[in-house]
């Protein structure tokens, strides 16, 4: 696995960003909230490696803090979406019959709702908040995973080793968790890593239009939003926040691609 080039690149990128964001309190050079009238809109310099924003706040620190928000959302939403999707997909695929039909119709209905508009509607009733965004995104991102998992379960349950396990008289729970689940893990993991990237982009988009993270909290989307107000002049704001998003998403996608290559039983682990 470690020899897979895409995986290695991806892991390097992802780990760097993760470590930076996690070790924030120790490495952040300046307080991201302190405004400083003298230092408004400074281009990158030695004391401010990424420059400052319109309030004189150090951009580098804000980007690190923003990373925290974006990554948290990405990982948490993905975790819940994958968890819900996997459970529903496995139940649907394994038990079939009316349970499968009912669940899949439910998935179809859910897929009919556009996430963005749901979020806008919900926010319309209350105030935009971090938790709200987390909840809505989690509840509306699990459907693809459910479909993928169900398809995998349907194919794996027909394999001879699953039939042999049933023939041994093993109970259903054992068959599901020991014979089916480990063999559908590959696509699940890959979906998950790819989803992190897309959730971060969605969050950035929401924050960009003002519906996600609220000031003075930072997220890459809010910073990007600010940068747009003076695209040519304070170019460093747009550049670095945009770059942060792109690099992170590429990193996770590479990890996902690399994992997909590795977990393919024909080319990856089996070298015999």
């Amino acid at each position, binding site marked *: 696995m470690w020899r897979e080039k895409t995986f290695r690149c991806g892991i390097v990128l992802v780990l760097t960003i993760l470590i930076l964001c996690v070790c924030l309190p120790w490495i952040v050079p300046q307080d991201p909230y302190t405004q400083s009238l003298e230092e408004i809109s400074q281009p990158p310099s030695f004391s401010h490696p990424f420059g400052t924003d319109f309030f004189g706040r150090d951009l580098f620190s804000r980007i690190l803090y923003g990373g925290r928000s974006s990554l948290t959302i990405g990982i948490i939403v993905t975790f819940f979406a994958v968890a819900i999707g996997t459970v529903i997909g496995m139940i649907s695929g394994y038990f079939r019959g009316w349970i499968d039909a009912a669940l899949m119709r439910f998935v179809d209905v859910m897929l009919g709702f556009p996430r963005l508009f749901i979020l806008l509607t919900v926010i319309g009733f209350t105030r935009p908040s971090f938790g709200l965004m987390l909840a809505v995104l989690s509840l509306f991102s699990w459907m693809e995973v459910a479909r993928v998992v169900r398809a995998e379960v349907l194919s794996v349950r027909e394999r*001879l080793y699953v039939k042999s396990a049933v023939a041994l*008289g093993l109970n259903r729970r054992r068959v599901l968790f020991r014979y089916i689940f480990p063999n559908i893990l590959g696509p699940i993991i890959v979906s998950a890593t790819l989803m992190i990237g897309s959730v971060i982009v969605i969050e950035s988009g929401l924050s960009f239009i003002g519906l996600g993270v609220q000031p003075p909290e930072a997220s890459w989307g809010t910073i990007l939003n600010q940068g747009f107000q003076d695209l040519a002049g304070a170019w460093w704001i747009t550049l670095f926040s945009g770059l942060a998003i792109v690099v992170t998403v590429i990193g996770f996608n590479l990890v996902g691609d690399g994992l997909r290559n590795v977990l393919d039983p024909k080319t990856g682990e089996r070298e015999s």
Partner: protein
Amino acid sequence: MSWIRKPASGNRKMKSNTDREKLIEVKELLVRYGQRNLFRRREKTVNAVNDVSFFIHRGETLALVGETGSGKSTIAMSILHFVSPDSGKILYSGEDIWKYKLGELRAYHRKVQPVFQNADESLNPRLKIRSTLSDALDPTLSSEEKSLRLRDCLSNVQLNEDVLPRFPHQLSGGQKQRVCIARALATGSEMLVLDEAISSQDLSLQAHLLKLLLELKKKLSLTFFYISHDLETVRVIADRVGILKDGRLIEIGDKNEIFNSPKESYTQLLLERSRF
């Protein structure tokens, strides 16, 4: 004659047995398959198994021979309780297996075990051999008893203990098939359903497996239901032979009768072609 039997798992009481008892009786089995084209327009029902009746005596090897698509595997799957018949019965020691409740079904499964054609696909690629075989053992046993049994299982199929910590892809084809046989026996089974388990291997491996199966049959008093399209291996292992064509059992009888004086023309054709 003493019956060398491994202890049964589950709570079912086995009836007392006599020689030539009918272990499995298949009565007027009918299994249908629907065929649809890509756009689900045409729906053609085909009788995969058409009014088939036969029985398998305890301790014998019944072979079912026929072309691919003749329905042999479907019959095997029905006996293994994987494919439900559209009509007809399958009796095990007189009991209808399709009327079993969950507990009885589990006990039945452990008594009648499959060995499939493709050993590669019969083993969970994510489990070590030790885990796969342990899953077959009686779960109420203690861990020392389990280790002992594992060793017995392996020695029965002439495998070394060093296969235990390995994964399936680290074993050769022959070793994998032998693990499958070991697993089938580890449940204390009394009948093995061998679905093309031998014929697609190379000659040398066929010889190994056939010799092994014949020895095991004697040692453990097993019954075999042997499905194959290859008459050579059937001739070695079978006591009685049935010929299946297009879902119908056209001839069934003692091995020597079938091979030396077949009554049906299709049987004669098969024999002729296999001598080629």
